[in-house]
């Protein structure tokens, strides 16, 4: 198939960017979206132009590196996938596809489609861990039984890949699904209870400091999340913070 691509080009974080039109031809419907981008880049290199910078790594939907806003949706029109798992069969011959970086004030553009998501790192450093030494001298793993339901729910929260689609898609650029998932994972496990109050307060404070917006419960994040992280994690974080405030 032949496609017209409208892609955001921006030299570096200080430069002013703009949408640029490109054409690609003979695209196979079995290609992944990023393979289509590879084809375009090879074409640009052959023409002596600079290829389009975009983040990607594992190309199997788990590293969370790829981050394109395609035709007005984070990771494009399909559900439950990242951009690298999006395939060209989702598009039709002759389509025009708009490709933009993930947008949020807290995710500044580094170059073209590459954005800086280290705000997420700083939020995790504010408390996204259990303070236990890595000596291995902890108690036996089976000394403390954990209900299967709690473990499964914690796992569901923990599957977050930190891609930032929730922020990108939120009309408020809120990071609450991401933070809620991390808070939930630990809140659901007995090991995480000891420092639960400090954790949620510190992580939320850092989230606010990074300039993410306020959640208005539109639920868009849950729909666009490649891993289907539930809004319930945000509700749980709210409860945790209220609990911590009352303490």
């Amino acid at each position, binding site marked *: 198939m032949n496609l017209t691509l409208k892609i955001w080009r921006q030299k570096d974080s200080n430069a002013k960017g703009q949408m640029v039109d490109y054409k690609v031809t003979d695209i196979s419907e079995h290609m992944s979206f990023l393979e289509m981008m590879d084809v375009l880049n090879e074409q640009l290199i052959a023409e002596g132009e600079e290829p389009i910078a975009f983040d990607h790594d594992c*190309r199997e939907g788990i590293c969370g*590196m790829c981050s394109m806003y395609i035709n007005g949706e984070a990771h494009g029109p399909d559900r439950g996938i990242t951009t690298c798992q999006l395939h060209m069969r989702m598009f039709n011959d002759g389509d025009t596809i708009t490709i933009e970086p993930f947008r949020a004030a807290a995710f500044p553009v580094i170059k073209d489609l*590459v954005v800086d998501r280290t705000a997420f790192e700083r939020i995790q450093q504010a408390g996204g861990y259990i303070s236990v030494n890595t000596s291995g001298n902890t108690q036996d793993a089976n000394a403390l039984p954990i209900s299967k339901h709690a473990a499964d729910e914690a796992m569901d929260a923990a599957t977050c890949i930190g891609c930032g689609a929730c922020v990108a898609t939120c009309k408020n650029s809120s990071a609450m699904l991401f933070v809620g998932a991390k808070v939930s994972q630990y809140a659901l496990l007995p090991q995480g209870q000891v420092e639960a109050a400090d954790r949620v307060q510190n992580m939320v404070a850092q989230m606010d400091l990074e300039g993410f917006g306020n959640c208005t419960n539109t639920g868009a994040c849950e729909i666009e999340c490649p891993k289907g992280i539930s809004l319930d994690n945000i509700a749980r974080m709210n409860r945790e913070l209220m609990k911590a405030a009352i303490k």
Partner: protein
Amino acid sequence: MALDSKVPKGPIQDKWTDYKNKINLVNPANKRHIDVIVVGTGLAGGSAAATLAELGYNVKAFAYQDSPRRAHSIAAQGGINAAKNYQGDGDSTYRLFYDTVKGGDYRSREANVYRLAEVSANIIDQCVAQGVPFARDYGGLLDNRSFGGVLVSRTFYAKGQTGQQLLLGAYSAMNRQIARGKIEMFNRHEMLDVVKVDGKARGIIARNLITGEIERHSAHAVVVATGGYGNVYFLSTNAMGSNVTAAWKIHKKGAYFANPCYTQIHPTCIPRSGDYQSKLTLMSESLRNDGRIWVPKNIEDVKAIREGRKKPTDLSEDERDYYLERRYPAFGNLVPRDVASRAAKERCDAGYGVNATGEAVYLDFAAAIERYGKEQAKIHNISNPSDAKIYELGQKIVEAKYGNLFQMYEKIVDQDPYKTPMMIYPAVHYTMGGVWVDYNLMTTVPGLYCIGEANFSDHGANRLGASALMQGLADGYFVLPYTIGDYLADDIRTGKIPTDSKEFDEAEKEVKDRIDFFVNNNGTKSVDYFHKKLGKVMWDKCGMSRNEKGLKEAMVEIKAIREEFWKDVSVPGGANEMNPELEKAGRVADFLELGELFAKDALTREESCGGHFREESAEEDGPQKGEAKRNDKDFAFVSAWEYKGEPADAVLHKEELEFKDIELKQRSYK
């Protein structure tokens, strides 16, 4: 230089404990005067950085991605082995040790493997304490599954995302130390050389991938944990950015490179669909528990399927060749990875591949769906269930077990694997070879350590499923942090290592010159052009089966590609900006050297063992005819290569392998 593995004396089960008791330690007050650089922040690097920081060292950690959480350890699906014996099925440290050595086809170092098995149980305790949500049973205790090649259930798992959860655990431990200021994290930085001062590793040269700035970082020791080099094949299940650069740079500065030819080719990956393919996706090995592998018996049917005139479901049972069941009646579809991979290649080479590229075989779940369906009908007391009902009940069970994998397959291939058999083909997955290290995990350069997949030590010629995660975390959490103290104990009075020495000047100049060459070379071909070309030679001649003629040709061809690369590569963009093409160029340049050493190593090893199959070394007759033949008399050694300029000139050093606690046996899965 003679190789000294520094394996401690004494009975194997006491070696590690005794060694730890006698090892030099660094006083806590002195640790804060000692800097350690950790390059790579996957399971091995991340856990090492966290533990070293916790012990009190000042750690500088480097990752080429924007976060340690993105390292490719995250993609491991199946699980992590540990000799916990929670299932009471007779597991023990010795049994895990034995399975790992046997699975590695007797080409690993016994003492290292025993230590790995010994600390494996601690890993699970540690991870649970960190909040890793392992799967549990209804009693609230940890669940286990079984994995290929072993007779016990010792694999702990977190859905199909065990690697992700373990990496996030290690990353959370890192975060705690970053917050305490004990780890300084350098995201989007790539190590481009190691700096040696007075023969010791004292720092690295790194490029800031956002600004292009070349930076000098000094330390008292350097730890390289940068994973495997599977991307030398261009197509592999590795991440796009996975590379050999750090390992290769230290090799060029004196670290020996061991067994580069030991590559694991995983049998169940989604086949290539065309030339544009950029990477391959693994489907968990667990699928072989329920899937039956086959190709058509008649070549006419193959043709008909390729042309779309027939569907695989049109073929009756006796028109199908379940070749694994035919060849290996005892293990059937559950033979080890290398055996299953070679058998698929054999059928496809004979022309029986079932997709357009001729490189695919079927993995069929129809029998499993029917079996489970009948079972369920019995459980639910449904008498005389219809075929549709049986199918429906069976599909539910299969969905519960493999639903996420089936969905992933459907997204990629656009076929419903519940209705039509999956297509699979082997793909490069893991590299057992790597930088040579001694018992302390130190390379042949003092103060330079190598851990995780990047080193060679624990998996011999073939790795068992669910053992990569175990090794990464064992090295990082429990081994290196102890052994490095033995070396650093001599450095408590050294003081900060200055970065304005001539050694740093030279290393930086070398790095800058190379970058300048790339951005100024007016070539005509993209980096990927060369990478694909290299990949094709590697796959065709250094792939699942190798022979003398092919390997010799490979060495010549790779050298020619390398020469063409240095003449004609085109790298757009500048040096002082984010430039992904420049990053790739540097990595492919190193792959082009490694590839040749790889072929040389494979050529030297005139035996078949594990992932390395030499056509000249196969059983000639008897029931094992055609199967791999190991040669313990002449080849029970580790090949450690010393860099001498051209890869072809590399010098071989042998570390003889001694097996005192395990009897050497030829593997048989018939």
